[in-house]
């Protein structure tokens, strides 16, 4: 009897202890902060493992924070974020890029970040990394990584065309001569790969070419679409299309496999091209550097320029866990692990900070391609006319570029129709 009573007592004690432990567990789970992170990195096969590892590492280092990754495709994310911000349920943190960043900044739904950025971090940011990310002086997005475009040249194709493979064209005239030599010696090679689709990204990509001719059709210091510089750019585009130097209508991504197969001589593309081509061709680093080089855009009447295709991180002002959200943003941007596993590892881009604090990472950033981007190309970064009118301008300008490249309308008429289509 006593034994049975003591057994009952023991069971009751264990039950109460278990209940108490459970309650404690529940309370501790309730104290955990959950961050929502809208991003396209988790939506793409190449970058998904890298971002998942970065999130897992962050959660391990911050056991009080859970990150829920919301995978949204790159082409959809701006629309979804604007709609969610308008309906009052935005994520805590979001990945964003290009004009979409400016659009979100324009809504006023983003948390100004200056108060979160320490002096040390501000000093460690690369010069110009936060360009275009301020509205009325306030930083509305934090630069996660940098991915400017460079002028990639295939040394083997140049050599076969009788060109010096170590002297890529520096001017538009030199480029024209090189394109002619390549076309005549290797008719099956696409001499120059540029994106001539009608979308906002295509204007970003073509903007430096326009600047190369001194054309500024829209934005600060605009001289309009009917300027002689813009007409010179459109005329040049028509001439190279007629000569068969470009393959119109392809997205830049569609040229990458062709470049990996050695069928493209010059390609105007972002730093990530190296990773994509190596992934497609299985080429080693040494072979890649022997075959491909990258430099600044050939210049015409203007200066060489490039555009920033890197990604930013934003925090919404209606979020409830801003400190945790900032901790996550700072981790993704500055943690050597996140830089190694995601930024360089799978995203093939450059970190936005000068010093990573990791010798092996700094060595990885000293390779020829990254060095060319850091030392030569990034200093030519030029601002783009981002804002609410950019998409409308992109439609008008790229429709005109497409007409110049594929149509028969006179350049004067095309310039006029672009001008009429630009937002007033």
């Amino acid at each position: 009897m006593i034994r049975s009573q003591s057994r009952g007592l023991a069971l009751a004690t264990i039950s109460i202890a278990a209940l108490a432990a459970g309650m404690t567990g529940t309370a501790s789970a309730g104290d955990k902060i959950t961050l929502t992170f809208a991003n396209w990195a988790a939506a793409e096969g190449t970058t998904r493992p890298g971002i998942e590892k970065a999130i897992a590492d962050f959660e391990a280092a911050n056991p009080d924070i859970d990150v829920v990754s919301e995978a949204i495709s790159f082409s959809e994310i701006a629309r979804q974020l604007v709609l969610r911000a308008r309906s009052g349920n935005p994520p805590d943190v979001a990945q964003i890029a290009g004009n979409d960043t400016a659009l979100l900044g324009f809504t006023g739904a983003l948390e100004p970040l200056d108060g979160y950025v320490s002096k040390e971090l501000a000093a460690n940011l690369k010069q110009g990394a936060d360009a275009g990310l301020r509205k009325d002086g306030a930083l509305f997005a934090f630069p996660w990584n940098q991915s400017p475009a460079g002028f990639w040249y295939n040394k083997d194709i140049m050599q076969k065309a009788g060109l010096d493979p170590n002297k890529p064209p520096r001017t538009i005239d030199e480029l024209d001569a090189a394109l002619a030599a390549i076309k005549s010696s290797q008719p099956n090679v696409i001499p120059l790969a540029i994106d001539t689709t009608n979308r906002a990204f295509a204007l970003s990509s073509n903007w430096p070419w326009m600047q190369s001719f001194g054309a500024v059709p829209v934005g600060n210091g605009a001289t309009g679409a009917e300027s002689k510089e813009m007409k010179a750019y459109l005329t040049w585009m028509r001439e190279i299309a007629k000569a068969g130097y470009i393959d119109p209508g392809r997205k830049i991504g569609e040229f990458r496999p062709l470049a990996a197969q050695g069928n493209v001589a010059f390609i105007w593309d972002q730093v990530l091209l190296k990773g994509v081509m190596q992934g497609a061709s299985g080429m080693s680093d040494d072979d890649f550097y022997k075959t491909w080089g990258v430099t600044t855009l050939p210049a015409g009447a203007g200066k060489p320029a490039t555009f920033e295709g890197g990604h930013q991180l934003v925090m919404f002002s209606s979020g409830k866990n801003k400190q945790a959200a900032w901790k996550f943003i700072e981790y993704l941007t500055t943690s050597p692990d996140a830089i190694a596993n995601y930024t360089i590892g799978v995203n093939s881009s450059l970190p936005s900070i000068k010093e990573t604090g990791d010798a092996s990472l700094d060595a990885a950033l000293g390779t020829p391609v990254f060095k060319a981007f850091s030392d030569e190309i990034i200093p030519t970064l030029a601002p783009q006319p981002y804002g609410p009118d950019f998409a409308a301008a992109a439609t008008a300008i790229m429709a005109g570029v497409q007409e110049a490249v594929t149509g028969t309308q006179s350049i004067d008429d095309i310039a006029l129709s672009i001008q009429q289509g630009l937002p007033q």
Partner: protein
Amino acid sequence: MPTQASSSQVRAAPRRRREPWLDWMVLPTLVIMAVVVGYPIVYTVVLSVEDYNLLDFTPADYIGAANYAKLAGDPIFWASLVNTAIYTFGSVGLSALLGLALALLTENLGGARFRAIRALLLTPWAVPFVVVAFLFRYMYLQNGGIINAVLLSAGIIDAPIPWLNSAVIALPAVMIANIWAMTPFFFLLLSAALSAIPNEVLESARVDRAGTWGMIWHIKLPFLRNPLLISSLLMVISNFNDFAKIWAMTQGGPGYSTSTLVVYVYRLAFERFEFGYASAVGVIWLIMLMVFAWIYMRALRMENR
């Protein structure tokens, strides 16, 4: 007399059976329709008279008919409208003709042979539209596309044709893809309609020594008129709203040469976030489709009388 009486009884019978409370049973359907169809339409009309940009978080301003006035002077709207008409009526007309021809050609085939041919002819209809678009996009590639490769190797052309990169031939090229995908629909429907023609009618025509063309023109086509009208109305509405194929193949380019109303509305609403202006285009678009459907239905009713 008894016959008349019985027919009036038959006609009166449904009236006697009618129960007024049954009318209320339609109410849930009406409520659902009002929510899922009525509300979006009314809200679109409301948005069309407002300066409503999704990026601007301040309340939208009422601007009356300003969006409609802007529309009247918008060359891209008019170009898109013309492209929509060419794309829709061109695709539907040619698909219907091809579908009819195929239905007539295969009409007398029987057994396993017919089943195999019909299955083959119906295959394009089973392919998702986006897949059709990408299939043709890659076949049309100026460099590396199979169509140019075949034409070049056969010596038919000297230089690759810029199928989707020429402002002149891009729209017909997209229409070919659309016709390829849509023809089986007409073939299926018209084959069924052909098999429903009473044998007595066909036999009588044969007895009267009607030739093949006479049979088609005077006997079969009149029987196919209603199915053709209904199916082409459905396809006109479907093609008027066709976004996937055009967006995947050309995104409305080069220039605005393949931009249709649906592509233009998409750009306005989801690239520029100009919901007010996009709604005005949407309202005009809706009115056009309703007018077209009304004319069509009226023609059908007159024919039935």
